[in-house]
């Protein structure tokens, strides 16, 4: 058994992979990786690697396009596939949708359905395929980032980059927080062993690109939380700290993604 964070972190202020509390893992990304699709991306955060491709906006299939929502704007379809070899134990039954991947798919669909300017493409479908090649924590956050890149690559308009990040606490955090004696630190961008041990949440934020007159007056970009997901149990007094740290992480990731997008234009 390797060590665990909740024991050693208070002693060394180092996490199990050698990071400090506020450090992201190494994030690398490329876009236009698959020319056959409308837009595509490959993104890795640490050992979590995700490939994403976007098809569309295309004419929706007959049955669905006639539905109520179809007339108003494009429908976003998300399909998440966690590869059988993505985690430590190889899953025999690859391809079938399990609980985890369908939850991620639902969250992504809800997030991007409202995030994208879908009203520009009535009666059409934007389908996103997310393939998880390697899972090492922060799966939902990495998927959000990969989708954003692929959607940018596909040229689908959106108000700003939607980026996701996880944040957790360095202990079980089951008792109320004592502001005078803060024993627990928030942690940014959790890896799989940390996720299994600690409470954590996933937050996705976006910025609205200021338009028109406001642009001049309001120098600062406004950040909006678009996705917030938490499955673990912890005392509510910690949420605020975690949220702040997570949103900060999202901003860092946004800068990185912007770099990737701008860099690929140059190429």
């Amino acid at each position, binding site marked *: 058994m390797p060590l665990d964070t909740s*024991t050693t972190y208070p002693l060394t202020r180092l996490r199990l992979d050698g990071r400090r*509390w506020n450090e992201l893992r*190494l994030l*690398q990304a490329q876009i236009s990786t698959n020319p056959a699709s409308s837009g595509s991306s490959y993104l890795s955060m640490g*050992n979590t690697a995700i490939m994403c491709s976007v098809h569309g906006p295309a004419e929706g299939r007959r049955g669905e396009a006639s539905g109520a929502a179809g007339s108003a704007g494009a429908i976003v379809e998300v399909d998440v596939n966690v590869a059988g070899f993505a985690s430590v134990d190889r899953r025999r039954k690859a391809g079938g949708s399990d609980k985890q991947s369908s939850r991620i798919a639902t969250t992504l669909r809800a997030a991007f359905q409202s995030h994208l300017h879908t009203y520009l493409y009535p009666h059409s479908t934007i389908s996103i395929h997310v393939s998880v090649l390697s899972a090492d924590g922060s799966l939902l956050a990495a998927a959000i980032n990969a989708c954003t890149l692929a959607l940018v690559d596909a040229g689908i308009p959106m108000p700003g980059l939607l980026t996701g990040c996880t944040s957790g606490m360095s202990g079980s955090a*089951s*008792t109320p927080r004592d502001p005078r004696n803060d024993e627990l630190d928030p942690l940014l961008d959790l*890896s799989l062993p940390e996720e299994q041990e600690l409470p954590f949440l996933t937050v996705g934020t976006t910025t609205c690109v200021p338009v028109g007159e406001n642009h001049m007056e309001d120098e600062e970009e406004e950040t909006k939380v678009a996705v917030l997901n938490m499955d673990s149990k912890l005392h509510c007094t910690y949420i605020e700290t975690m949220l702040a740290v997570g949103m900060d992480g999202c901003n860092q990731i946004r800068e990185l993604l912007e770099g990737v997008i701008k860099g690929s234009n140059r190429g």
Partner: protein
Amino acid sequence: MKSLRRDLSSNPQASNVASKVFVRSTKSGKVQKIVRELYLRQDIPCSSKLCSLCPSIAPSDANGNIAPFVLSDRPAGTKAFPRGHYLVPDTNALLNGMDLFEHTGAFYDVIILQTVLEELRNQSLPLYNRLLSLIKTDEKRFYLFFNEFRLETHVRRGPEESINDRNDRAVRAVASWYEEHLGASAKKGKKEKSVPAIVVITDDKGNIKKAKAEKVTALSLSEYVSGLEDSEKLLDMISEAREARDSKGPIGQLFYPEYLSMSKMMTGLRAGNLHQGTFNVSPYNYLEASVKVPAFNKPLLILGRDNSNRAISGDMVVIEVLPQDQWKSPSTKIVDEEAVTRNDNPDSEETEAVVSQNERKALQEEVKKAHGKSSEGKPQPTARVVGMIKRGWRQYVGHVDAGSTGSQAASGRRQQTVFVLPMDKKVPKIRVRTRQAGDLIGQRILVTIDTWERDSRYPTGHFIRSLGELETKGAETEALLLEYDVQYKPFPKSVLDCLPSEGHDWKVPATKEDKGWNGRRDLRDLLICSIDPPGCQDIDDALHARPLPNGNFEVGVHIADVSHFVKPNNAMDLEASVRGTTVYLVDKRIDMLPHLLGTDLCSLKPYVERYAFSVLWEVTPNAEIVKSDFTKSVIRSREAFSYERAQLRIDDPSQTDELTESMRNLLKFSKILRQKRYDAGALNLASPEVRIEADSDEVGDPLTDVKTKAMLDTNSLVEEFMLLANITVASKVFDSFSQTALLRRHATPPPQNFEDLINQLSKKRGMELDVSSSGALASSLDRCVDPENPFFNTLVRILATRCMTSAEYFCAGAHAEPEFRHYGLASPIYTHFTSPIRRYADLLVHRQLASAIGYEGEDGHAVIEGVNTRGKLEDICRNINFRHRNAQFAGRASIEYYVGQALKARGEKMAAGGTDTGIDEEGYVMRVFENGVVVFVPRFGIEGVVRLEDFVLPGEAGSRSVSERRELAVHRTTHFDPEEYTLRVEEKGHPEKERGVDVELFQRVKVNVSSVKEEGRGAGKRRVRILITG
């Protein structure tokens, strides 16, 4: 298509990412390959106060606090390192010498590496936890250095390198980095000389050699320790296991069969061929043990050293049933280890066989008995130990067997091997190597077992510390506490910080507007009083009764509101949950809660206002309960009575005040309740209890302090209402928390437990015991009376109690509802509610009840957090059951010790007067063996083994010295009839009727009790000798 390969060249950070790849196998045998990222960095401080560079890069946590630097700028020096030194131990050094590292005299400024910590965790979880708590204390200056993440000290495993070699290399890399780093960064002004040396401590010879080549200072643990002051003391603390590994090249003669592999055991267990259970050694015969396995309703027998195969009482073992022709009957002999093997030499391993000549003889006779025809002598399923699931080893209190030390013991400092005889008779003697044998003789010492190899007849262990002289009060009390794992250290500061800041001046708030009054009923007008043993300080409970206008009565039980002061999950709560219960020794009380709460703020002292948790019933004059009500309250007790004073007041017809009347009512109700309980089938059990009044003056006969417990009506008055309160609360709590209510059950004992007793009673007295239900048992126990022997009934009750299982705490979800029954009390549901000051279970029940009645607490929302998860609750139950049992054992052992000491004091006084004749008492035979009997002496509440030599035959002088009597045993012979439970002792060659002594089961015998100096295991207790005189 673009290449998706990770392109690391573009990112400057990326070169610092390494990965750690390792393979592990899961429990189910699956092999997993794990890949982890490692972010290498240069901002991990060395944490030395000497360093001028690291403070600038030291990491801060989320609040911007920087961890203080740990390692001293003036580390202690030794002869070899006059400039001072930092220690860098490797894993083996910690495995072998954890006791040393915890020693307060040495081992300061230690750098613990991440590599080492991780390896240690894989090897031994207890040691890992001990190391962690060392790192957390400030005094010892242990620094946890995450070497794997520091760029300079990260070591990549070479292609052909074994993981051990890699880890050793990592340790050396850290040492040389520290050397270099401190050399470069030591604060200016400090001269070059003051840079401390970095000393790697390792027990691996290859590692030391390599270190030399790399110019790293490396020493073995013993080399290092021998350079310290008082090295002799410290050297003994190095674990024995290492020595064994080093010195024994080729394994010598193997005495014991090898254990099965884990997978073989698992297959066997699944197939049902093997069984798993706890190894339980018989208190009368150290060569006989039983293992209770779920597959059979009677425990399986394990006889002899070969079959026990290195198992020690308390181990979790896997056993295999032997073929039927090897089945044996349980022993009918008393076999004491020290008597049989007193001449074994601790040093000579070569000549000894597993079964020594003497032991073989002892076994032979048992085999003979195995073919007897009696029901007791019938061969029983016998098994042998084939595997070990988990060792139950702990630290043992014992003393050095003076006979096993060498002749030059007192003078020389030479290392020698001695035997340590544990206080617990069920544990075999432990072989310990020591250099201070001479000093240790006559001391109570603490030792631990390291290993029991196949080629060693006894387990090997090492010395931890000395508790003090044998028979001194301090040492014996500490020994008791250690032996029963009682937490007796003073409360740490973090616990005391949780106490109310007002201290003893704390008062119930005067105004009812105060938040302390939220949800509390004002019961200050009620005439409440408490009845407790004399001198009781922690008053848990108080009572009242008053007539109601409708002719019914209101009866109230008021319990100290401890949960008001002990909030869930704070340091005090955690400490209390670990302690579990208050432990009462004869002259000492080890509290569960700090003194301030237990004896003052919570204690329902008379004349002052106190918070309480009240249970109120409306009862009819016939003690039928009309309704019950629970509330938090404020009360003012009018008087604190002792049992005797309460009794006197009730019995005194001239007292007619309201308080006395209320007590009379209570007494009346309690009698009705008691009768109802017995009608429902409750058992009236007995335990051999005596009470010690230690505070009486010292001049008199010390034995007058020893009193058998008197049962007054007022005792049962309190008891009845406490039982009623507990039962009422139990059902209320269970209604609200169907899964997590904390309850107490007493399982119905399986009828076969009583087989022996039923048999004995029908044979010897023609009496019958009906065990079909608790009611039937109760009434048949009532019929077991011997008009000539008034104590006989109590004796039977004591024996019947021993056939039963013990009651236990559990949480409601763990058992089906019919299993909740409390057999002894004949109640379908039961819990503990009435003593929260001294039992943690009651405190939890208080919290649950508070939540069940919607009590909202001071701040408007009650928290029962931490109790509401079943898993956690089950952990707590396990712990408090364990603590409860141990507290009882410790209390009994304390009384036993006190009785022994009182007899000793008396003996010395008598000896001064010229004669030491002991004291004549009555005793009762509880068990008959082939070579002795077990006698119970009610006067002192002790039972003891009477061996052959302790029978005083007709026409023989009564008192002789121990050694003289021991000689006698050789000349005596016995006739033992296992079917009739009789034993006849006579001198060899003198079968005349009048020269022998006959004893039989349940017989009343005259005994002479005295305390004698005993060599061997009993030395500490000064065995209480019982002579049968007729």
